[in-house]
């Protein structure tokens, strides 16, 4: 390694969750995922009490390092850390020295010197979080790296589904929309397939990544066809810059063929549930009627987000060294 002090530390890893970092869903075995979901179920209970505090992270320092703005994810991680008793600091790109030309490695070295225990990182470039994880001594959580992975989103989706359907195995889940540019889609495809769900992707061909047919999913370009028999419909956000001719011609055409409205939703199973990682574009990928309707779990996903992040932080904290 690079000879930094961290390699000398002795760590005793929990057998339930034997990972130092959470960089992606890739590499997590079903028992590890179930362990996190179980922990998160407990965290939901904690969060629903008046006294929303546990002490498992007391004395620990958590830094949320966001190179890409994300109010929702950042506040979710902040709240999760605080509910577990950690000292939480937020660093966003606008206030960091990245703007002054500091490289990612320099930033890592600087942060490392502050001796954090947990580092939560969001970055616009795929692989940036992996790079950072190799250069710091603390546990690293990927809060989204470019179009690569967003593991806590996939976990919170899994938690939400499991709490409603009891299990993930055997469910048919459709992930719809901009699969090509979505880290949420990648993490969910891996997680859901590993847990025994049947995964479908539905998108215009221009929004499918190459090689999608070899990702172990069923591919559809027609929404009605793809939604038939689905238990879960996951919508993805379409970025504004992609909706005016580059990947799809217009918002109205996208909504017409790929926006989830009640007519299209009627092709899914009657008890199908609708999810969206947020923030939503009502009238682009989802109609207001469906987003706010009885089949929507979108609000609940936000609550589960805090719980799953508490679970992840707690699981990683168990593997932190006891001695400095």
């Amino acid at each position: 390694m690079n000879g930094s002090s961290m390699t000398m530390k002795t760590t005793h890893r929990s057998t339930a969750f034997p990972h130092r970092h959470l960089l992606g869903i890739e590499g997590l075995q079903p028992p590890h995922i179930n362990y996190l979901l179980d922990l998160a179920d407990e965290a939901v209970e904690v969060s629903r009490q008046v006294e929303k505090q546990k002490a498992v992270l007391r004395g620990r320092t958590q830094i949320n390092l966001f190179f890409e703005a994300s109010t929702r994810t950042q506040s979710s991680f902040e709240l999760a850390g605080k509910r577990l008793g950690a000292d939480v600091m937020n660093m966003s790109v606008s206030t960091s020295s990245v703007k002054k030309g500091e490289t990612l490695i320099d930033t890592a070295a600087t942060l490392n010197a502050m001796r954090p225990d947990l580092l939560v990182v969001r970055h616009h470039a795929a692989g940036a979080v992996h790079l950072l994880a190799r250069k710091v001594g603390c546990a690293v959580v990927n809060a989204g790296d470019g179009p690569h992975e967003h593991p806590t989103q996939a976990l919170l989706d899994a938690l939400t589904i499991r709490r409603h359907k009891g299990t993930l195995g055997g469910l048919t889940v459709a992930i719809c929309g901009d699969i090509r540019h979505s880290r949420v889609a990648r993490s969910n495809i891996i997680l859901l397939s590993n847990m025994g769900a049947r995964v479908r992707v539905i998108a215009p061909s221009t929004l499918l990544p190459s090689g999608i047919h070899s990702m172990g999913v069923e591919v559809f370009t027609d929404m009605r066809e793809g939604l038939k028999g689905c238990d879960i419909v996951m919508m993805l956000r379409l970025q504004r810059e992609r909706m005016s001719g580059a990947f799809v011609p217009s918002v109205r055409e996208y909504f017409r063929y790929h926006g989830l409205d009640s007519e299209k939703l009627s092709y899914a199973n009657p008890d199908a549930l609708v999810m969206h990682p947020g923030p939503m574009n009502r009238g682009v990928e989802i109609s207001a009627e469906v987003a706010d309707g009885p089949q929507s779990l979108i609000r609940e996903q936000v609550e589960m987000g805090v719980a799953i992040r508490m679970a992840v932080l707690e699981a990683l904290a168990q593997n932190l060294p006891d001695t400095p």
Partner: protein
Amino acid sequence: MNKNVKPLVLTNARVIDPANSMDEAGAVIVQDGTILAAGADALNQGAPDGAQIIDCNGAVVAPGLIDIGVSVGEPGAEHRETLESASRAAAVGGVTTILTSPNTDPVIDDPALVDFMLRRARDTALVNVHPMAALTKGLAGKDMSELGLLKEAGAIAFSNDRLPITNSSVLVRLLTYARDFDALVVHQAQDKDLAGSGVMNAGLRASWLGLGGIPREAEFVAIERDMRLVAMAKGKYHARLISCPQSAQAIQRAKNDGLNVTAGISINHLTLNENDIGPYRTFHKMSPPLRTEDDRQAMVAALADGTIDIIMSDHNPQDVETKRHPFAEAEDGALGLETMLGAGMRLVLNEDISLSKLLATMTCNPADRLGLPAGRLSKGAPADLIVFDPQKPWIVEKDKIRSRSKNTPYEDETLTGRVLTTIVAGGILDHDAI
């Protein structure tokens, strides 16, 4: 449309129906706007009661022509051509279905405009009209247009007219996106930089005339690129107009590789060459340019061997305002609707191709590519027919041109093969009254 209520029987005819490999003496029976029977056995059951009988005196009866390359001035340049005037030109030329180019003002890139074209055609046109819509917004070659909504509105195919899409990423995404709607992408391949400011075929002739040349490479380099992109996107592609043998070879290779590709050509590029430009005749200025006689012959051969699937008129009305300029400054384009069949007959009379083959490239081939039921004499097909005398000579007289513009490259020339009667949806269009 002037629909005949009475059934119609065309007897004593040479019935040619390339879709069904038919070329035989016989009759065609039309009832309720569709074909009831065609061929030697058509009258075995006798003529329907009260049918109007037309004795064709041995003339050819064939499916009406389908022309997939027609510029109309409507909307925006009605002084050059309207749907009504273009449809009259089509009718006398034996063209019963036209595909309009989206190169109007405004460009047909919005579902409401497709609807406008269909309604105007319904109210004013004598023949069937299917609008093509723009591949990219404003034909600018940048942002893809609403292929799904446009197709739902009635756009039959998508074209960027004569304007090439130079950005490969845009074209590959279009081909990919079009796949979801089974939409046909019609593209004029040209490398804009290689074409530069050229105005005719590059070579000796252009050099002596002192005109900038457009090399063949400007076309076939782009065609070869397009074939790679079609393979990448698994798209459905029609090369709008190819003009040189290297392009035909690239198309042939792509077909051999199983790509969903067809190729078209204009009648001009099969019957004229760069020498016809003579002393700077602007009616012979076209895009892509007329090539050499060797190129022309190679294209005829590519038509004969099936590499080229579809002949279009590339009808492009231009008036003195746009044509009466020094050659380099004049607009491209020539009329074609009224002369497509007569000019095509030159190839038949020269024994380059059979009459049946010529008709296939103007009837069932475009129909099959577009998914149209017309272009054939099968039972139940729309009764769009022509009766024509393949031996009858006629002179292309400016005063008799039905088009509002007069820019024919065949002015005062004699063509052999004249359409006598045109029938659309079972209704006879009287040429003298058009």
